[in-house]
Structures are given as C-alpha cells and as structure tokens.
C-alpha cells in the first residue's frame, strides 16, 4: 500500500465534490485505481461512469488508463482539455 495524491478538475471535480484527496492504494495501474475510487461512493461512481470522457496525468504528464502506478505520487483525472 502506498499513499498517492488524487486530483480532479472541471466536471470531475464538481461531481466528486473535491479537488484533491489522499488515497491509500495497492492498485498496480490507473484502471485499478479507477475501480477502487468508483467503489468508494455514488459521487465517485458518477464521475468515472464514462471512462471515454476521462483523461489522466501521472506526476503531471499525460498518460493512459493502462499506465502502471509504480513510483507515482500524484494522479490527476480530468475531461478532455479545452484551452486556447
């Protein structure tokens, strides 16, 4: 078990009701972490209901859902970006 910071932005943040939480996890990859988070409560389940609309960054670099979590300290979930 390690402790990671999980961050949420835009509508993921709003659905979950928090921008950041500290999570104890043994998840080997992002997909397993998402499963753990989704099982926490209805808010998390709603936020991750459509994974095609969710993007992830590991320690501030874009990654995909199958990326391993070994050594990662900060995981962020957010919708597709809309800057510019």
């Amino acid at each position: 078990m390690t402790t990671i910071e999980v961050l949420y932005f835009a509508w993921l943040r709003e659905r979950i009701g928090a921008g950041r939480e500290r999570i104890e996890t043994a998840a080997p990859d992002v997909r397993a972490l998402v499963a753990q988070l989704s099982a926490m409560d209805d808010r998390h389940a709603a936020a991750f209901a459509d994974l095609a609309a969710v993007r992830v960054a590991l320690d501030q670099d874009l990654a995909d859902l199958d990326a391993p979590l070994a050594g990662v300290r900060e995981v962020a979930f957010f919708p597709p970006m809309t800057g510019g």
Partner: protein
Amino acid sequence: MGVRVQAEPFDFGAEAAAFGRGLPDVGAIVTFSGIVRADGGAMSEMVIEHYPGMTERALGAIRAEAIARFGLAEALVIHRFGPMRPGDQIMMVATAARHRADAFAAAEFLMDYLKSRAPFWKKETRPDGTDWVAARDEDEAALRRW
C-alpha cells in the same frame, strides 16, 4: 520567460511589441490571440480552470518542441485562467523565425497542441445555465497533421 500562466489580463499590443524587439536575424513574427466570443450575446461569462504546475510544464514542453522543430529564434505563450468576459483576451502565442513559413507553422503547431494537450478547461455561463465546454473532435484531429 517564454511561458506565462496568469489570472491577470495582459496587454497584447505591448507583449507583441516587446516580443519582437532585439531578436537578431529574425524576418518574420506571427502572433495569435484568442478572445472570449460573446456568440451574439448568448455567452455572458467564461471561467477557465487549470492544473497549476502541470500547465506550465505542458506549455514549456510544447514551446520547446516548436522551437526545435521550426528553428525558431523565440517563442512566447501567455494563457490566463479564472473568470473572463466577452471581448477579453484569453491567451496569445508569438513566434519569431527567419522566414514566414516557419513562423506561421510554429504558431499553428503551438495552438493545436495547446488546445488539446495543455490542462485548461472552459466553463461558460449562458441564458440556459452554466456548463463545461466540450472538446471538439476537430481540435483532436488537428494534431494529426504534425
């Protein structure tokens, strides 16, 4: 100094003028600036959320890639976050090169990557409510040309 992420407004004219000063052997400067559209009065406020830390990191990487790929003498990216109103400047990029083709291509490259790979999210307030702007398929498709 080539990337700035800030809540404060910036002076596009002053930034554009300062960017061009004292660059040796530069023949072409291109700027792009993005402005909040009113959409005929339908949009009253926009709020931009971002991911502090990752934003600077992502923009810095995109800028470095543009400089290397197009042989730029200089490149600048400024992007705001927080609340904005129609007519406000959201962001700008500027590129400087010997010839115009590189300056134009680099500015478009910066914009295409910034749109879909820098962690910003827009939320708009319209008469029917407030909602997050959906990403456009053509913005993702635009990356494929590079």
